[in-house]
């Protein structure tokens, strides 16, 4: 942000628990390609639907666009588009060590609800027409393609049945039949790319690539596409009935297990919050808030020290609404802005620009992670803080560096 003078940085977000559900690997790889590859293209074109977390804005930009749209189901994508209208350069960063690690929805129902929300949100953004104000045709084209994709997805899903009936009962000219096979080819290519993506994903994160995983993926690939298809059809249904409520995705912390199993990140990068003293959800939350506030205050103090030296000290806006830090969500939900963030970061932004999220159910069950040390939520520190406080080596980074050294030695 400082070095490249960009006002918006979207960093990587990565689902990690690729073995917990049958659909998890596809979900993880979708994130992998989205943040590692596709968003870079969006940034290059100058039209980017930003993600919901690990996004960094310069304050004046947020003020210029008037903050987030509370009514929108994908307010993150919406603000991305509105910022794209300003033609502001956007930097996308995907770094294995610094991605925000997340988990897949815990069950199929939750997954479908999440996808419905996103796709419906995209259609909302499409209907708002902000994208039409983008200066370049390429931006508009990409925006239209991206935002209207749920409609295409729904159409493709609804086409499955007539397509199968056609195969069984209709005799078509050969060239028509050949053209009709093209979508199947692209689907096959997508599958191959997903399998290779799974290999790349496991390799980059130092995870084991199970030998039977491609077979499992072959079996689950189409059902996964159908899940997304069902979501898109559901979007049509909800849009027609004007149902626009927020269906919150549950979180169980599954990614924490898988990430610790795979790449035991060292404490410098993550600070574990203290274990709750009681198993009662409400008191557990209270205790957690109290104890973690103290821990985070220390972090904030350090952040303030760093930002004090920065020329952008009072213009930096950090938005942390990640499900990764469910605690902050809960606090936000209760309309209690975490004081610990005020001195360094949050106080710089008018409250109005960071709206509370009234759609979050205040009775969200406390995830099991608060009573199990292994799954305890962690807060990720910035690079600088981590670097200043600890110098321990991250095994993922070390692994990558050694690979890079090996490859760098070869003739190119």
């Amino acid at each position, binding site marked *: 942000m400082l070095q490249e003078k960009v006002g918006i940085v979207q960093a990587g977000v990565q689902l990690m628990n690729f073995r917990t559900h049958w659909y998890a690997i596809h979900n993880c790889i979708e994130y992998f390609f989205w943040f590692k590859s596709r968003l870079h293209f969006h940034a290059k074109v100058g039209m980017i639907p930003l993600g919901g977390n690990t996004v960094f804005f310069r304050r004046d930009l947020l003020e210029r666009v008037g903050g987030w749209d509370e009514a929108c189901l994908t307010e993150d994508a919406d603000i991305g588009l509105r910022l794209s209208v300003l033609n502001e350069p956007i930097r996308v960063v995907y770094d294995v060590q610094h991605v925000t690690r997340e988990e897949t929805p815990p069950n199929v129902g939750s997954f479908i609800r999440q996808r419905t929300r996103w796709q419906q949100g995209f259609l909302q953004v499409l209907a708002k027409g902000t994208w039409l104000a983008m200066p370049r045709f390429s931006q508009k084209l990409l925006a239209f393609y991206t935002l209207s994709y749920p409609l295409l997805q729904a159409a493709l899903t609804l086409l499955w049945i007539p397509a199968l009936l056609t195969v069984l009962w209709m005799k078509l000219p050969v060239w028509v039949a050949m053209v009709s096979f093209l979508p199947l080819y692209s689907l*096959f290519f997508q599958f*191959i790319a997903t399998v290779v993506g799974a290999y*790349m994903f496991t390799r980059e994160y130092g995870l084991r690539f199970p030998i039977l995983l491609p077979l499992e993926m072959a079996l689950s690939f189409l059902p996964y596409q159908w899940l997304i298809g069902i979501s898109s059809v559901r979007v049509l249904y909800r849009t027609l009935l004007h149902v626009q409520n927020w269906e919150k995705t549950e979180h169980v912390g599954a990614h924490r297990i898988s990430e610790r199993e795979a790449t035991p990140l060292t404490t410098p990068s993550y600070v574990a919050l203290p274990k709750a003293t009681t198993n009662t959800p409400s008191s557990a939350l209270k205790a957690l808030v109290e104890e973690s506030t103290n821990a985070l205050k220390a972090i904030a103090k350090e952040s303030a020290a760093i930002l004090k030296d920065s020329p952008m000290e009072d213009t930096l806006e950090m938005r942390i609404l990640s499900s990764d830090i469910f605690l902050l969500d809960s606090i936000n939900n209760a309309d209690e802005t975490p004081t610990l963030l005020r001195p360094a970061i949050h106080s710089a932004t008018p409250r109005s620009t960071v709206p509370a999220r009234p759609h979050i159910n205040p009775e969200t069950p406390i995830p099991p992670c608060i009573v199990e040390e292994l799954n305890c939520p962690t807060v990720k520190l910035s690079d600088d803080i981590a670097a200043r406080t600890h110098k321990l080596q991250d095994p993922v980074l070390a692994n990558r560096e050694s690979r890079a050294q090996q490859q760098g030695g070869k003739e190119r």
Partner: protein
Amino acid sequence: MLNKQPATSYQQLRQIAELLLILVILLIAGFAHGVAMFDNPFYLGDEGTYMSEAWAVVKEGRFDPYTYTYGHAPLGWVQIALWTLLVGGFHTFGTAIETGRAFMLIYQLGSTFLLYGIARKISNSTIVATITCLLFAFSPYAIYIHRRVLLDNSVTFWILLSILILLSNRLTLNRVWLSAVALGIGILSKENAIFLLPVLAYMVFYRTDPSHRWLATIGWVTIVSAMVSYYVMFAALNGELFPYGTPLGGSRPHVSMLDSLLWQAGREKDGGLFDTHSKFWHTVGIWWQAEPILIIGGSTAALLSILLIKKYRLVGLMGIATLSLWLFLMRGSLVLDFYIAPELPFMALNMALVLGVVATTCQELWQKHHGSWRLFWGVLFRGMQVTMLGLCCAGMLLEYTSPALGLQQDPSLLWKPARAVATQKAALQWIQTHIAQCNSMVIDPSMWTDLHEIAGSNGYQLSHSYWQVALDPAIQRGVFQNNWRNIDYIVATPGLLFDTNFYHLPLVTQALQNASPIVSFKSGATQIDIFQVHKGVLKPGLGCSTLDP
């Protein structure tokens, strides 16, 4: 800042100079290929076949005017069809084959340009790139083959394009996919390009960034395979993938892709590389006499390239590419002389690259040493450059006196009209002016399109190539009812007479035995006789007969 400005200007100057050099090379290549390209060499039956297939694409929306037997994938002549649409028909440049040959000039210029790019990227030397192009463009045997309307010329272009894309400075995934599409078009133009799949797949792996090399390589292979599979699917959708009489082929008689594949693989089967009497060795005998520089020099250089692969990876890969194409020729089946076409640019490349590596080594030694050794290596380096150019010129001169192409008497023969072509044209013109269009004829494929595509009429609809008259049931039985009396005329070209005698083609043999020549066209060794068939009840003059039941 002060130092930067002249450097930039110098760089710009170099770029302009290189651009001019490329233009000059293309101009030379264009002249070498283009002068007298319509009239030399003589029209080959295969050229006529591809033109007639392109005609079928344009006029009938199918891949062959006869039954498409899956002998070759169709994209080669689909490109020719597009060319005729672009230039406004099959007779824009004269005869149909001449229009096709004009397209071959485009391929030749394109291939020369791509070859320059490849040599330049690998060697980083304009001299090496120039030598490569000159070896390629001036090779008399290459000119002889490249002028002809052959699928091999199309596949050469697409292979070179695929490789050049892979040598991009910034090899993005989009470019990798583009390279795969180029090779896919190449394979669907002529199948022998598939022999390059392994070496090019490795090249993708080697050239792409480690962060996405697996995605690039597997994606590249997937795209190429998908394109090839599309052709297989075409056969499957037509119900012509499996031979009839098999569980998957049904009982209705039909052509089948697998049958054709097996037939092609086993066509005139012999021991290939391991049989000194094989067609491979026989054709090598022709090649090395006609083109000793590229065949011997290029193949030796390809072997040397592989020895250099550790230090000069791309040079080595080009050597492997050359040997991969040799594998196709050594497979122990039919080898025709023009099968060498895709090899020629690679052999030119191998030669120039290996010479370039030797020169670079001398240069490195020159830079490393001091005193008298420095002088020695310096002289050797410059000497190498002069020798390279000298070898190039001397080799060319040697080839232009080669008896294999009849150049020993007249080295400029390739740029003069061949008498055989004049004979072929005269015969064609005589038919068009003396034989009524309703007559049935057995013809050479080289004149098929000119007899079927006639402005203002439906052409000679009953004129059919001798292969189909003899072997295609749809023509043999469907049109001629397997009765030689239904044939009015036979246009007896050397090709028709040879194949009829060699393969004992039914119906055509019988018709010839009952026919007598009415006119003869001769120049040198080429003779074309037009036979009229004695049908028993001959009508007076050149009228149309009624088909016998």
